[in-house]
């Protein structure tokens, strides 16, 4: 007979959890202030100048948080969990899609068993690799350019003008807003709806 304690595995270390929740809180604030900035005439959450100031402060907090993540993950070598195994990635991804699209509904077990060294399934690996190394940096760099348009005008002009930078920032804004929505929903697909949420607070995921 296995005890409750033995069934729990420690998958999210404290720095990762702190980083995750700072990031999550920052994202929500960035989305709200971003909506206020873009739709100033429709929304009235706060004055536009306050929304811009808050957006800038939170943006820099998220950038700092990202740099902490980068140093921690690259420094500790944990960044490996983001790199898919090219020999298996297609097979594993197909399995995962089948699970979300069919297996989950009929009560089949998740084909991916989460361990500290293999936290992400093949779909998560690809998504997070893209997000952490391409999309998030693009969002941060375009955000910094928009923060000081005059100061960075040379780089902005090189990239095709302020409208190109704005397009990147806005499209990614919509992408990340959609991502948060789906991310929150997928987080309810644990063995209980709140299991993954609890794990992101306690660090322990129940092993099945």
């Amino acid at each position, binding site marked *: 007979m296995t005890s409750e304690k033995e069934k729990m595995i420690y998958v999210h270390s404290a720095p990762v959890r702190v980083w995750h929740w700072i990031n999550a809180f920052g994202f929500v604030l960035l989305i709200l202030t971003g909506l206020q900035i873009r739709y100033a*005439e429709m929304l009235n959450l706060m004055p*536009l100048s306050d929304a811009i100031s808050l957006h800038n402060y939170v943006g820099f907090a998220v950038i700092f948080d990202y740099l902490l993540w980068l140093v921690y993950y690259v420094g500790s070598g944990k960044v490996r969990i983001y790199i898919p195994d090219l020999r298996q990635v297609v097979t594993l991804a197909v399995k995962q899609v089948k699970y979300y699209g069919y297996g989950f509904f009929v009560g089949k077990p998740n084909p991916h068993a989460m361990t500290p060294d293999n936290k992400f399934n093949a779909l998560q690996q690809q998504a997070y690799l893209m997000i952490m190394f391409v999309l998030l940096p693009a969002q941060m760099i375009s955000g910094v350019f928009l923060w000081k348009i005059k100061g960075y005008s040379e780089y902005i002009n090189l990239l095709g003008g302020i*409208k190109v930078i704005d397009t990147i920032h806005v499209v990614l*804004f919509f992408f990340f807003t959609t991502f948060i929505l789906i991310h929150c929903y997928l987080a309810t697909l644990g063995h209980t709806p709140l299991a993954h949420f609890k794990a992101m607070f306690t660090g322990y995921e129940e092993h099945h």
Partner: protein
Amino acid sequence: MKKILRWGLSIVCICWLWPAAGFANENSEWFECHSDEGLTKESTDNILKTEITEFLYVDEEKFNHSVHNINGITCVDCHSDIEELNYDEEVPHEQYLKAVCCASCHEEAGDDFKNSVHMKMRNKGITMTCYACHGYHYVQHMESASVAERENSICLKCHNPYQFHDWLPSRDSHFAYVECVVCHAPDVPRHINLKLYDLVTDSFYKSDKLFKVLGMEPEQFMGTIDANKDGLIDAAEFDNLVLLLKQKNIHAVFRAELVADINSIAHHVNRGTAEKTCQNCHSAESPYFNAVSLIFSKDDGTVERYNVARPVLESYHVSHFYLLAGTRMKLMDKIGIFLLAGGACAVFIHFTARVLTIPLRKKKDQDEA
């Protein structure tokens, strides 16, 4: 009868031309002395009330290109207290002349200036003259001037904008692309100036050069571009203009700035009345962007001006201008709605299937138990 008429007309013509001929000579007489770069006089500064040395040199070349000279305004038209020059004296006219009253010609501007903080300063004993801002001998047309040129030649002579705009997000961008009086004289009519910036020479395209390359006269421009003849270059016509520029090998981008019309209402600068509500400008319905002009500068500072439809500002042809909310691209909103709706649909469908298949999973659990 014919003879009398001929003589009469001749006398009228001579009388009409005589003063002009006299003034023309007078200007050159002035430059006999005032072309001396070392010519100075001791005076008192209007504002600081300190003794200063005033330079009396006038650059004839620059004066000849000034708007006043071009319009035939001579020295004594402004310095009207000089009736004659007496060369027997060391200084052939009064040493201290009366202050020139610009409002005697620029009446409307003079009236509008009365409703301004710069006039009210007189209650504190400080006299702001017109020429403190506008200069005098070398005044040029300002229509083609960029925001930087307008600010540098007027407001920034006295004001340091970085002292008073801590509350303003993206100060540098505002200072670079919005003329001071657009906010500080909120009732002044304003418009967006679109200028063609030559990437090869790193300068704005001048009217004569552009029309030479296009192979047309300025008067033919709208006839060629404005296909529906409504006097406005709309988004589709602007696409054609960009295509035409490419065909003519013109490597240029459109740069935009928010400037005030050359209008005396721009003097209505008053304490506490500046525009500080961001949403008045940063909104899709903002009236600040209703007037958009494509302008090509001429050498004398005037412009060839063509009206452009506002949606052109949202296009990628004007890729170097973007105003938060004010000129946002509606295409982006559609992409955003598509992404969000797609995500929400995926979640909804999965959640519905999840709820509907609860009995299946329960049955499986029971079977396993």
